[in-house]
């Protein structure tokens, strides 16, 4: 199938919303994180939302680390 259209791909093939339903913003130790909940109930850090450059140097807050 070849599509020739000005529409965005996401308009033609809507993403299954449950793919992203386990993602949320949480606040831990006064810092905000964008996380994905794992099947075992723990959270995997996707993105750190902070303006402090030192937070990005903190090993605990590296993307992919597990919180709780």
């Amino acid at each position: 199938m070849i599509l020739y259209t000005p529409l965005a791909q996401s308009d033609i093939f809507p993403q299954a919303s449950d793919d992203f339903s386990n993602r949320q913003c949480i606040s831990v130790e006064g810092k905000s994180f964008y996380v994905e909940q794992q099947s075992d109930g723990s959270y995997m850090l996707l993105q750190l939302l902070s303006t402090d450059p030192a937070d990005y140097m903190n090993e605990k807050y590296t993307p992919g680390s597990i919180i709780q």
Partner: protein
Amino acid sequence: MNKDTEKKEEENQGQQQNSSALVQKIQQLGQSNVPQAPDSNIHVLTIIGQVEGHVQLPPQNKTTKYEHLLPQLIAIEQNPKIEGLIILLNTVGGDVEAGLALAEMISSISKPTVSVVLGGGHSIGVPIAVATSHSFIVPTATMTIHPVRLTGLVIGVPQTFEYLDKMQDRVINFVVNHSNIKEEKFKDLMFAKGNLTRDIGTNVVGTDAVDYGLIDGVGGIKEAMQKLNELISQNQKSENQVIQ
């Protein structure tokens, strides 16, 4: 005997935990340790992807959510340990009112602010870039200046047109008031024909943005940090004078 074996088992477990933490770290970053830095007096705000406003974008979009940034800006203003703010921009634009909200917040911070446009600072990225005390653009970065647009169903065309026209004036006024570009020049760039194939607008590259007076200087992180430290020391001097 039993105690000895228990101890050994405990040690083994401890080693296993250590090695698994190391393996996890290598999986995350491809390296075993991250350099540590002392507390910084400069904070960094990144504006990446699309500026997300009233409408939540589909989750596969990378967005900067203004409701996350506004409280951070308040915290930066309030925290006495933070002396300066650096803003890194690589955005394709987005919601006009969310972008203007961010730009106004940044311009009204009392502490020195410096922005660096990296890659692209398009559309509503322009007011955010010029909102700071001093702005930089790297030579390869571009900024697209074009009229405000709207997609989707429009109910009440004349009213919506008026609203968009006023919204555009707000963007133009903000940029003109916070940079050295003349209103005429900015409008010329915004409504120029032939630069964006069949569309109106201009794609302004690094040094051109500085020539037009839109951005204060060409430079990267080194220049931005130098300027910010200079502004911080100026700010501290003036504060000391007030106390005396």
